[in-house]
């Protein structure tokens, strides 16, 4: 095991501030960390992160590799491994009970009520309109401020008015989401990870991440089929959900262990 140095602390503080870092941000911050702490660079990013994760382990934190559902790009997320329910937001987030209820409502709209065209997303307009029927009454301004705060704190992404779950939300609230939204939570037929933003088979409703669909289409250019029921999937799009992002190669086993089981009792 490599020694834990000042460069690792710098990096850790950066990811603590931003919670989610893209691959390129990670590389950039890692380089800066070496420079600022005057340590000679060695090894690759995954080795570097492993050294940090070894230190984080006793404190129930981990830097996990994941993919954004909206763009398919690889990101690194700092998550808590315990208390993976909404109490997290009250203790750490200083949200009131009402604000918490609003958060739950947003989750509900995104997970359960999204239309067939845009599974796993909701428009900010619909989300803000929730405030109208909310009790105690919430003004639109307040709802807007709250939604912005949720986005700033990296629970959701806002792509020009389309709201979706961030990897932080999916990983940290995993337990809560699968318990609360049980039948609405499925796994991707390609990578076996939990999936929200997806392309859906018209026959069996099995789901696939947009970025996984892209990978699938690259490998198999004709007679695309649902990986679950083998029903033809002719409209399987090779484009992401209208949002452009870096294309990434498919998941290979990685040192940080993206989980592959369907039901988990806690994130690891």
């Amino acid at each position, binding site marked *: 095991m490599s020694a*834990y140095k*000042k460069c690792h*602390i*710098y990096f*850790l*503080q950066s990811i*603590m501030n931003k919670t989610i870092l893209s691959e390129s941000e990670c590389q950039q911050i890692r380089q800066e960390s070496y420079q*600022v702490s005057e340590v000679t660079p060695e090894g690759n990013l995954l080795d570097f992160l492993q050294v940090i994760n070894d*230190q*984080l382990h*006793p*404190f*129930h*934190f981990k830097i996990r590799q994941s993919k954004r559902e909206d763009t398919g790009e690889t990101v690194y997320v700092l998550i*808590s491994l*315990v208390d993976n329910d909404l109490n*997290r937001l009250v*203790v*750490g*987030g*200083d949200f009131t009970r009402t604000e918490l209820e609003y958060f739950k409502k947003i989750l509900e709209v995104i997970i359960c009520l999204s239309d067939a065209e845009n599974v796993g997303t909701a428009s900010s307009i619909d989300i803000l309109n929730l405030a109208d029927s909310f009790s105690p009454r919430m003004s639109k301004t307040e709802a807007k*401020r709250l939604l912005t705060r949720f986005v700033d*704190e990296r629970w959701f992404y806002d792509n020009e008015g389309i709201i979706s779950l961030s990897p932080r939300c999916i990983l940290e609230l995993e337990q809560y989401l699968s318990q609360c939204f049980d039948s609405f939570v499925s796994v991707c037929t390609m990578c076996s990870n939990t999936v929200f933003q997806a392309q859906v088979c018209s026959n069996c409703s099995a789901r696939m991440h947009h970025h996984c669909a892209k990978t699938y289409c690259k490998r198999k250019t004709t007679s695309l089929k649902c990986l679950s029921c083998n029903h033809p999937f002719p409209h399987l799009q090779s484009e992401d959900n209208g949002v452009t992002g870096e294309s990434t190669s498919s998941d290979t086993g990685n040192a940080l262990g993206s989980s592959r089981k369907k039901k988990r009792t806690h994130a690891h």
Partner: protein
Amino acid sequence: MSSSQRNFDKAEIDRKVNDVVHLMLIWEQRKIPIKRADINKHVLKEYRHAFNDVMKITDKKLQKVFGLKLLEIGEGGKRAYILVNMLEHSETQQMMNWNDNPKRGLLFTVLSLIFMSGNSMTDGTFWNALKGLGIEKDKPHPEFGDVKKLITQEFVRQWYLEIVKLPNCDPPQYEYKWGLRAYHETSKMKILEFVTSLYDKSSVMVWKSQYQDALEEQRKTI
């Protein structure tokens, strides 16, 4: 107490320390001080008698792994803890990232204003100065929204600013000063360097009285 019992207690204390570290980092996201009562309630519980020992080890671990230091603030019943950054960041480097963290940019501007004015400003003078920078007390700001709330509530709650009511003033007047966290996370000299670069001056010594003030603070902390 048998040695195995002592070992068990030590292991249990270690577990509690790790949980306190976890709690403090989660709580730190709010940037609100955490009270002893919160730590006892959420983590220590039946081990509250070991509070002092636990906090000592917690501080060590926070410093070693996270580069953060425990700072006790307040007195008596109001005693609480905040986490302060031990690492030196190039202040100018951080500040220039206004896109990344505009609130921090505003904070540094506010701290600069107060320091350059001799470490305190009355609210009238303060808001006039901000108005000159395009920030108005009662007008929603495109970036910060309710600026008054951000500065007088959020920054104060986070111990970056202190706002004190002046005695014997009618109508009420307030004094704006640096908060305890500001003193620990930055320094007068660093702020002076920031202002110097902002005004494109050759050296910090251009600001005679502020330079002396900053130097005095430096001497005290060494």
